[in-house]
C-alpha cells in the first residue's frame, strides 16, 4: 500500500525548489514509500521511554563564550556573489517570482 502519493512528492519538491521530471516523481514516490514504511516499523518498536534522537553523540550544552572574533573580509564575503552593489549582494526582485 502506497502512503506517499505522487502529488505529495511534487508538493514537497516544489517547497524545496527541486525541479523533478514526471518519471522522477514516480520513482521517488516509490522510494520514499519504502523509507516511510521503514520508519513506521521503527516507531512500532520504540516505546515512549525511548527519547527521540536527533544527534548521534551523547552530548548537550556545547556553548561558546560571547567573545568576538574577526569577521570575514567584505571582499571575501562578496567573492562568490554573482552580482554585488555597494558592498551588498544584489538579488532579483523578490515578490515577482511568487
Amino acid at each position, binding site marked *: 500500500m502506497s502512503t506517499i502519493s505522487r502529488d505529495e512528492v511534487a508538493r514537497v519538491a516544489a517547497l524545496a525548489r527541486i525541479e523533478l521530471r514526471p518519471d522522477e516523481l514516480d520513482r521517488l514516490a516509490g522510494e520514499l514509500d519504502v523509507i516511510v514504511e521503514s520508519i513506521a516499523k521503527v516507531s512500532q518498536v520504540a516505546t515512549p521511554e525511548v527519547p527521540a534522537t536527533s544527534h548521534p553523540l551523547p552530548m*548537550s550544552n556545547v556553548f561558546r563564550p560571547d567573545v*568576538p572574533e574577526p569577521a570575514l573580509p567584505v571582499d571575501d*564575503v562578496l567573492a562568490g556573489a554573482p552580482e554585488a552593489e*555597494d558592498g551588498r549582494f544584489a538579488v532579483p*526582485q523578490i515578490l515577482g517570482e511568487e
Partner: protein
Amino acid sequence: MTQLVDYADAVRRFDPVLGIEVHVELGTRTKMFCPAEVEFGGDPNTQTTPVSLGLPGALPVVNGTAVEYAIRIGLALNCQIAESCRFARKNYFYPDVPKNFQTSQYDEPIAFDGWLDVELEDGTVHRVEIERAHMEEDAGKNTHVGGAAGRIHGADYSLVDYNRAGIPLVEIVTKPITGVGDRAPEVARAYVQALRDIFRALDVSEARMERGNVRADVNLSLRATPDAPLGTRTETKNVNSFRSVERAVRYEVSRQAAILDAGDTVVQETRHWHEDTGITTSGRVKSDAEDYRYFPEPDLVPVEPSREWVEEIRAGLPELPQAHRRRLQDEWGYADAEMRDVVNAGALDLIEATVAAGSSPAAARKWWMGELARRAKQDEVELADLAITPAQIGELQGLVDSGRINDKIARQVLDGVLAGEGDPEQVVVDRGLEIVSDDGALLSAIDEALAAQPDVVEKVRGGNQGPVGAIIGAVMKTTKGQADAKRVRELILERIGS
C-alpha cells in the same frame, strides 16, 4: 479600497481576540551561532562569518550568553524553563535567509507556560498568558531598489546585507488574549511596552523600537460572542512602535468587522502595516506550519539547562519594572493617580534620578510634571529630550531648599540651563539671580515702599496685617523678585513697629 466599520460599533457587535508575537534582538556582543561581532550601523556585510553567510561546511556553535539571556526572559515572564530543548530548522527561501533555513526552535522551546500582568493607563490590570519563548536568529536586511520609495512592491531588484543575519532573537508568543473587548488595542500596546521595559530591566537588550530591536507581529480575529469559537485571524507583521501596535489592532478590528458584516470570510494571511497611512494591506497567504518542514537541527546538540543554573539565574534577576514601580510609589508616597500620570508621562526614570540627586520626591514630581512637562509640550519633545538633566533639577531644587533662590527665580534659572548657559549654580552666578539677603538693601527698598503707601502703614498699625502683602509686592518689584519674601515680611513688620 476596503470599507471600514466604525471602531466603537465593531467592538459592540464583535469580540476581538489577540495573539501577539514579539521578537527581541538580544544585546550579546556576538551572533547566536558564530563569533561575528554585532554592532549597530556597521558597513554592509562587515559583520559576517562563514556560519552567518551559510557557506558550505560551516558549523554553528551556540552562544552561551544568549541562552542565559533567553532563560532570564523566560523567568521574568513566569515561564517554566525546559530541562531539555533543541534547535530546529525552519525551511524557506528568501534572500535575507542565507542558509535557506532559519535556525529556530519548534516543538521544544526553552521557556513555556508563563504569564505577564499588564497595566493599562487607567490602572486596569490584564493578565496575558504566555505560550512560549524560544531562541532563534535574525535574518539579513533587504533593501529594495527601484519601484516606489524602496517598497517591496514594484522593486526592480534587492540588495542584501547579512550583518543582522544570525543576531540572537528570542520570540515570545502569547496564548489567545481574550476578554479584552474594546480595550484590545490598549492591551496590545501595554503588553509590548511592558515587555520592552522588562528587556531593559533584565539588561538583555537595548530594546530600542526605532532600531528594530523589538518587533511585534499582531494576530487578530473577531467572533460574534465571547463563547463562540475563534474566528479566522490575520497576522500583521513588523509593527514597530507602541502607537502602531494600537493603531494596527484598531484598523484590523474595523476591517474584519466590515468583511463579516458583508457576509464574507476573513482570509487567513499575513498583512503589512503601513505607518504613513495607518492601514494594513494583504501580504502573502499564511503558510501552514508544515510548509516550513521543521526538523531538528543536526549540527547542534540539545540545550539542557541544569536546575542549578536556572536557579542561579533566577536569584540574579534584577527588580522587575512592576515591582520597581510599586516600591518607588511606597517610598515616594505618591497617590495611585499621581504615580500613573508619572509613568504615562515617561517621567519615572527622570524623577528617580532627580530624587537620587538630592531632591525630595514631591519637588521632583512638581518639576517634571509641571514646569518641565509644560515646556516639553510647548517644544513638542519628550521630557527626556529636554536639554536638562535630573542632576541639574536636583541641584536647582537644592538652591531653592537652601533659600538661595525662590520658586519664581528658579524658573529663570531653568531658562538659563535650557538655553545652555551651564548648571543651575553657574546660571545663578552669571545672571546675578541670588536672593537679596542683605538686610540693608532690603530695608532701603522697604522704606521706599512704606513712604509710597502711608495708608497701608496706618492699617497695619491699627492691627490689620492683611495689607502687608501690598508692601511685600512693591519690594519684590524693586528687587526684581530676588528677595526672600519671608524675610521682607519680617522686616516690614519690624519697621512699622507693630
